[in-house]
């Protein structure tokens, strides 16, 4: 037991609330769980339950009021905004419901975006981008703009952008929420492939039980509290 690998994600007693005027609205209360490396976890729950807030905390784009979030051994609750930005760029890949691609950039340029913050050369960046675009099956669409791609293809580009820096974890917020059934299946298969073939750790927020079925673990949030797993 002594040489057992520490979990990739450790969440301990996390709380978060928002202030609306003089009112304080609790969003998350006492959340605690771990995720091992290479696991695929789905976070489910009704709207307003705090799923996306929890995802944002894990991804380091929002700050918890209390508790510890340790990712790959780093307690991100102690990092400054600037440190968090650097940490995110190196360790987290994001997949959004509405893809969040830059409409004025081609698929290639969108995927290249996170690499612009690394010391890689132009050629190295090109090699990385071409490789991940071929992983998501869009090698022949790299010069297309988002408006020239279908929803499913745009989400593939977003996944390619998320994995191009080879991050430790991927966070996905309703990645199939804007897709038809067939495209959603493709995206889920791709994510499953990322876990099994590339050993990625994925945390996915979803409303869709069929999407959640792909995950190894399902966590339910109800009014800011984990209800079952």
């Amino acid at each position, binding site marked *: 037991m002594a040489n057992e690998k520490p979990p990739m994600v450790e969440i301990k007693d996390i709380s978060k609330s*928002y202030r609306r005027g003089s009112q304080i609205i609790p*969003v998350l209360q006492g959340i605690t769980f771990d995720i091992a490396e290479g696991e695929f976890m789905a976070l489910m*729950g009704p*709207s*307003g*339950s*705090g*799923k*996306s*807030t*929890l*995802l*944002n905390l894990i*991804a380091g*784009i*929002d700050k918890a009021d209390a508790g510890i979030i340790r990712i790959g051994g780093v307690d991100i609750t102690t990092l400054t905004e*600037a440190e968090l*930005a*650097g940490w*995110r*760029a*190196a360790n987290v890949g*994001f997949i*959004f419901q*509405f893809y*969040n691609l*830059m*409409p*004025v*950039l081609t698929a290639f*340029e969108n995927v290249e*975006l*996170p690499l*612009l*913050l690394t010391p890689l050369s132009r050629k190295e960046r090109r090699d990385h981008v071409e490789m991940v675009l071929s992983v998501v099956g869009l090698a022949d669409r790299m010069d297309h703009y988002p408006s020239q791609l279908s929803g499913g293809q745009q989400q593939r580009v977003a996944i390619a*952008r998320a994995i191009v820096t080879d991050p430790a974890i991927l966070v996905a*917020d309703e990645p199939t929420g804007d897709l038809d059934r067939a495209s959603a299946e493709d995206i889920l298969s791709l994510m499953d492939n990322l876990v099994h073939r590339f050993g990625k750790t994925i945390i996915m*927020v979803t409303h869709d039980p069929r999407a959640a079925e792909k995950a190894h673990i399902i966590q339910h949030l109800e009014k800011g509290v984990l209800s079952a797993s």
Partner: protein
Amino acid sequence: MFIIKLIIRNAFRHKLRSFLTILGVAIAILAFGLLRTLVGLWYLGVEQSSATRLVTRNAISLVFPLPISYKDRIRQIQGVKEVSFGNWFGGVYIDEKHFFPNFAVEPRSYLDLYPEFVLSPGERDAFIRDRRGAVAGRKLAAKYGWKIGDMITLKGTIFPGQWEFVLRGIYHGAQKSTDETQFFFNWEYLNETMKRTTPRRADQVGFYMIGVTKPELAAEVSQAVDDTFRNSLAETLTETEKAFQLSFVSMTEAIMIAIKIVSYVVIVIIMVVAANTMAMTARERMAEYATLKTLGFGAGHIAGIVFGESVVIAMIGGVVGVLFTFPAAHWIETELSQFFPVFSVSTLTVYLDLLAALVVGVVASIFPTWRGATISIAEGFRRIG
């Protein structure tokens, strides 16, 4: 490089909006440039005044004449190199709408004192020899299709009657900014006619122009001229040509200030419009800025993208405005030459135009840049699960 690429592409993302914003800035810069040119030209006479020329007039007012006999006494004052004289004639060609400045002058000394009015030697001699000879500026002659030898009739207002002149020369300006719409004729013609018809008005001039040997002597010579005629029936007021011109300009100072204010107001208006457009644009792109921040781009990157887009749009508008200023100024100079004989856009005005466009871009971007740079990622996405 990526930031520049993104700025350029974002600037033309909404083509109609960008086009209208650029057009608005261009029109504002055009108006600003033309108004600044107008203000600049108002002072052009002052700026182009020679440091070695003085103007002597009646101390009471310019409308009161001075005796011709003063000429020889002025010439004897130390430091005086040349003396000329003349009258504002105020003649009307065809009707009052066809206004151009016309003067009776002593040809030889006048042309010596004003080398900026360039005549060929033959035309100069013909003008000096012919008592009914006249000289017109190139633009004025072109406007009425006058040719050398043409008979030109002016109706006298200050000096009544029909006055006929023979065009002996067409001058061109030594500089681009020289007024080429003036009309001069031989003072002797005016004086001889006055002797015959109104003797009490003969042998009198409206003003003397004095050339001094060195600019440093201007004050000393002015004082000496006025001292010479102190306590006479017609005391003089002598001042540099610049001061003389300024006395005219100062009469319209309030109008010039109003025009300057309007030129700034135009810029402020377009600044507000551009700021609104940029704020709208930035608001629409908050999710994109949040995405970039999520990927690790900092506030500086976002600020650069918003700021750069605003400046690029404003500067394109500024350059287009400057490019349109030149043909517009040429049109004014050609079609409205009776009001604006010279209407050339100066280099300083071009710089002011571009500076104004830059200020519009910078000011318009302040709020959206601050908003884009400081917005939190979560707020940018506006989503709480």
